[in-house]
């Protein structure tokens, strides 16, 4: 034992000795010519044969260095001193411990410069190319399937495309904008195998004449076709079938053709599964082609704010045709048309409660059923020339509908309503930009948009309502009303393409001019028996009114920015003239004034945790003809309204202040927001009741209202099972004066609500989420009478499980509970689904509303009224669906 220890010690000492003696230690000092030490210079020992580095070190603060090297490696070495700005020196030394000093002179390094041209440099107007085949797998059929996988690109449920969180501003196929924003027809039907590349044009300024001055960070998307997909016709299809109480179907066929000078895409679609076709054919460019509402209507069930596929009972057929032709001067001429026919039925039981001072109420119960048949159409023709100095964009669009609406109300008696209308709208848009050829490229930009719309409505109600006013208090068979509302508006602006800068302040001026003209003609007639209607005489029961508003002014936008502080002020100063001519009353009214409606916004960041944001604006509102006619109009079977032809004003202001705190590293965020608004109206709209019938009229009575709300929010993420919790609570209180049965009521409403959302992953494959929300709202009449609060509670939970073979199973549970006074209503909704993609066909089975819940029940308060509704929803259904390419 002892001998073994002694032996080990001997070996250790021997090894230590050998290792020490096999090392050379080269030491030294490096000084410049003024005898100052050179620090951080590299000193290297190099092989004499190939000058490769054997060992190295750097000099210290005193210019000293020390390098160890292996004695056995080479008998001789080179020692090199070289540095940032010292001349290189090399000495040959023998490989043993020694001291080598250097005196060096200054010299800048001679560099052999080089540069490999970098190919992808991200710039202001860059293009990202996605090669479609690199993203496409066997499960992908249409281009939208592949777009969803491309980093940065999102396709939302509505079909809208976003790039890095921002909606695309233009959608091109081969650089041509044929669809004018109706691109979901293209993305859902163009075969993925036909597209070579998807290009994202980042920071896309579609107007070439503005490219040097107006930065845009809008992305645009361009689909580039494979050469063999150009100039041929292709076709896609969607098929689905299922059942609830009836047979369910869902189908579409789309054909398309793309070539250099001509593009074409058309589709036909049909379903009765609750998919709104009109929405599918909509444009995402957000141009205002939509028709306004009529001032009269059939009273029909109001759908709840839930997904349409839950409640829409439809039978829809529709189609679209789109064409683009490129002219010789590169101008694009587009032609688009789409049309759809839909039959929709609705059913509900509603209770409306109107409150009065002294605990009085009027309660109206209505069992409602309605049927709506519509033939909607819209289209446009456009010309666009996009030159470097000249830009012209003009579009003429039209949209219209032909609607037949019938409704039956079971109140105390059966009331039949019938509405017919065929509204239409024509709008035109003109943009023109001209830039100079000189260095500054001064220029002008002119934008103009105008529309004309006709909103007629023919309403017939039987039995006749408002017998007191319309038939000398004698019951009569039916009342009919013709309404013709015509509306014209033009808005124009002129901008000089330069802006003033003064330090951190910036000013952008522009000129504006707008004109609006509206006319309203109404006439009521009645039938005592049979189909013979006669006009009801009396100027108070008809209208022939015109209204016009002219505005002209200057707008200045002032901005100031520093790192932590931002301020924006928008100051539109306008001259406004309004005139009203009421022929039956032989009355005319005019109003002239200057309006100033400033808006301001301030934000201030305190460190990286706190931020304060404030905003404020002032407004001045004038009623349009919709609130200025003097003869009675039947709004619906139980509401008649008339206003005065007096031109009045409303003034108001709104402000908000938000204080936020966040600790990002702890995943914690919270904020507190206060909002306040107040207004002053010169007139009030008085409501008076005759039984359940309501008359609305305007009264000169100055009144003020206000609203205050406070909201607090907090959220936190935890490590445990990826648990996330979000909470929000808010409280609000407002005063809204109401004039009901000639009593001025100071109606105060008040509400609190809170919600909490949490999500967690039990395992990688099993996920769970839950959202609970609770609210309580109530009102108070003139400080004393408190109305019964409406309390509601909603809980929605969902579970998802992904099987190892790729089949996804999902299930959702929802619970709703509404308490009003002593009554309580509650119900459940349960859904489930399975989806799988097999070769080039996507297959899914959805089992919706498994418990076959009949109605969606909800209640809410509006000004001095409460509403309760049981709305019929789609019954339990099973739907099989598939999507594939025909050729």
């Amino acid at each position, binding site marked *: 034992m002892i001998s073994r220890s002694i032996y080990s010690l001997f070996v250790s000492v021997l090894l230590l000795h050998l290792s020490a003696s096999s090392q050379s230690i080269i030491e030294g000092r490096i000084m410049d010519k003024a005898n100052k030490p050179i620090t*951080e210079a*590299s*000193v290297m020992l*190099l092989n004499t044969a190939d000058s490769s*580095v054997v060992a*190295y070190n*750097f000099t210290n603060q005193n210019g000293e260095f020390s390098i160890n090297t292996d004695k056995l490696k080479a008998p001789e070495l080179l020692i090199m001193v*070289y540095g*940032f700005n010292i001349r290189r020196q090399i000495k040959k030394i023998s490989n043993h411990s020694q001291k080598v000093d250097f005196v060096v002179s200054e010299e800048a*390094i001679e*560099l*052999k*410069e*080089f*540069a*490999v041209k*970098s190919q*992808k440099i*991200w*710039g202001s107007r860059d293009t990202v190319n*996605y*090669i479609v085949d*690199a*993203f496409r797998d066997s499960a992908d059929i249409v281009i939208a399937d592949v777009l*969803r996988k491309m*980093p*940065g690109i*999102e396709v*939302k*449920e509505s079909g809208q495309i976003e790039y*890095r*969180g*921002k909606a695309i501003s233009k959608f091109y196929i081969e650089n041509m904008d044929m669809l004018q924003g109706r691109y979901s027809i293209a993305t859902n039907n163009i075969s993925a195998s036909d597209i070579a590349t998807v290009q994202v044009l980042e920071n896309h300024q579609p107007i070439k004449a503005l490219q040097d001055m107006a930065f845009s*960070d809008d992305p645009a998307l361009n689909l580039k076709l494979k050469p063999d997909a150009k100039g041929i016709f292709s076709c896609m299809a969607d098929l689905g079938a299922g059942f609830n109480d009836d047979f369910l179907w869902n189908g579409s066929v789309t054909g398309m053709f793309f070539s250099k000078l001509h593009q074409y895409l058309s589709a036909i679609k049909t379903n009765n599964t609750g998919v709104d076709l009109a929405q599918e054919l909509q444009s995402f460019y957000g141009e205002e082609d939509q028709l306004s509402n009529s001032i009269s209507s059939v009273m029909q069930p109001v759908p709840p704010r839930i997904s349409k596929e839950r409640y829409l009972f439809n039978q829809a057929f529709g189609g679209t045709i789109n064409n683009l032709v490129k002219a010789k001067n590169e101008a694009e001429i587009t032609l688009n048309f789409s049309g759809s026919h839909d039959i929709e039925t609705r059913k509900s039981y509603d209770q409306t409660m109107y409150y009065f001072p002294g605990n009085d109420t009027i309660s109206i119960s209505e069992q409602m059923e309605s049927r709506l048949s519509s033939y909607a159409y819209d289209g446009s023709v456009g010309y666009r020339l996009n030159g470097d100095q000249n830009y012209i964009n003009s579009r003429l669009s039209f949209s219209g509908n032909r609607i037949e609406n019938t409704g039956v109300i079971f109140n105390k008696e059966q009331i039949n309503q019938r509405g017919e209308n065929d509204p239409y709208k024509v709008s035109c848009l003109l943009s023109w930009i001209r830039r100079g050829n000189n260095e500054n490229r001064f220029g002008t930009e002119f934008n103009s948009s105008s529309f004309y719309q006709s909103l007629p409505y023919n309403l017939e109600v039987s039995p006749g309502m408002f017998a007191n006013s319309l038939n000398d208090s004698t019951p009569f068979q039916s009342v009919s009303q013709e309404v013709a509302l015509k509306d014209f508006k033009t808005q124009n602006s002129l901008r000089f393409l330069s802006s003033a800068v003064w330090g951190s302040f*910036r000013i952008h001026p522009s000129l504006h001019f707008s004109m609006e003209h509206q006319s309203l003609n109404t006439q009521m007639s009645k039938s005592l028996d049979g189909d013979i209607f006669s006009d009801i005489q009396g100027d108070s029961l008809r209208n022939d009114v015109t209204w016009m508003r002219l505005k002209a002014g200057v707008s200045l936008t002032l901005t100031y*920015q520093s*790192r*932590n502080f931002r301020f924006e002020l928008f100051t539109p100063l306008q001259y406004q003239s309004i005139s009203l001519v009421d022929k039956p009353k032989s009355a005319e009214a005019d109003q002239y004034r200057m309006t100033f409606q400033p808006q301001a916004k301030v934000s201030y*960041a305190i460190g*990286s945790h706190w931020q304060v944001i404030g905003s404020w604006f002032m407004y001045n509102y004038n009623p349009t003809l919709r609130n200025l006619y003097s003869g009675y109009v039947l709004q619906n079977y139980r509401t008649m309204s008339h206003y005065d032809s007096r031109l009045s004003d409303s003034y108001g202001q709104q402000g908000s202040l*938000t204080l936020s705190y*966040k600790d*990002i*590293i702890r*995943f914690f*965020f919270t*904020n507190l*927001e206060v909002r306040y608004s107040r207004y002053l109206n010169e007139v009030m709209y008085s409501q008076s009741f005759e039984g359940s019938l309501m008359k609305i009229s305007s009264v000169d009575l100055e009144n003020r209202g206000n609203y205050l709300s406070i909201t607090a*929010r907090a*959220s936190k*993420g935890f490590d445990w099972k*990826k*648990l*996330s919790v*979000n909470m929000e609570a808010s409280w609000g209180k407002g005063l809204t004066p109401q004039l009901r049965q000639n009593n001025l009521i100071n109606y105060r409403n008040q509400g609190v609500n809170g919600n909490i959302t949490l999500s967690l992953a039990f395992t*990688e494959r099993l*996920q769970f*989420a839950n959202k609970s929300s609770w609210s309580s709202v109530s009102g108070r009449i003139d400080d004393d009478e408190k109305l019964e609060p409406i309390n509601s509670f909603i809980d929605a939970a969902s579970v*998802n499980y992904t099987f190892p073979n790729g089949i996804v199973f999902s299930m959702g549970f929802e619970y709703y509970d509404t308490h009003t006074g002593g009554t309580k209503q509650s119900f459940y909704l349960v859904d489930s689904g399975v*989806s799988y993609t097999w070769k080039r066909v996507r297959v899914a089975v959805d089992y919706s509303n498994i418990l076959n819940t009949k109605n969606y029940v909800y209640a809410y308060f509006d000004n001095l009224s409460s509403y309760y509704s049981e709305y019929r929803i789609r019954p339990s259904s099973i739907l099989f669906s598939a999507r594939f390419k025909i050729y």
Partner: protein
Amino acid sequence: MKYSQFIMRGFIFVDLVLISSGSFGQMQRLRYNDEFTTYDTARYEITYEVKKVVDPSKLNDVVVDIQKLQIGKRMSKTFSYLQFQNDSLCTILEKGDGDFPSPPVGADNREIFKDFRTGELRIRERVDGIQFCYEENKPEFNWVIQNRHKVIASYPCQCASVTFRGRQYEVWFTTAIPVSAGPFKFDGLPGLILEVEDSKHHYTFTCIGLKKMTTIIPIRSQDFPCTATTREALSKFQLKRHSNPTQYYNSMGVTYATKKDGKVVINPKNFSWSYNPIELE
């Protein structure tokens, strides 16, 4: 074409949509003002092309960055040129009233300043509109010089290897440029490092440009507000953020949406971004 494929292949940050839920969630962003702190004047500028594998399970999915190393008398700075270009654009846009482009794909969000006298590193790292700052002592590199040689851009280079914060690297340096510097935090060899690659081929740095400054180019940083932290705290935060982005965005009051199996999912529950940082320890 090769490049565009690199760009389009998955990058962790670009597949998200952020929907602001009312006034609750507001993604903070940096305010780009013309305010800078200047530390030194660049004498040399070295440009590297950096290729990164974002998801270790997909070695072919590579993103590309262009990084510059500016070397002054007292200080050096490493930064992403793509990010720099984006910042320049944002600084112009800040003066107008436009919105802002997202950070370019592949761009590194770090600026690394090295003080030659102390060897200390100062790092500024941006995450969603917040700039985190931390300092590090001179990192230890136990270089092993290898007897292998090659020529890069006409410079004779020698190989050296090192293990640094969880990765094994092979680098190529040249004694012909006697600047002890390199990309990222690499340092301590008797010459400039022109190429770096880790053993798993997740990170490669290749010198694509070398320039001696003839005009005065300051080594500076834009004065964004700093949130002080440590390297350990920040890397823990990044790991947590990547492993559960939904939780991360929700905690800021922002709704997170992405697509899963071809469907848009709001606040996906079991979802993570691939995370493959250069420093594993």
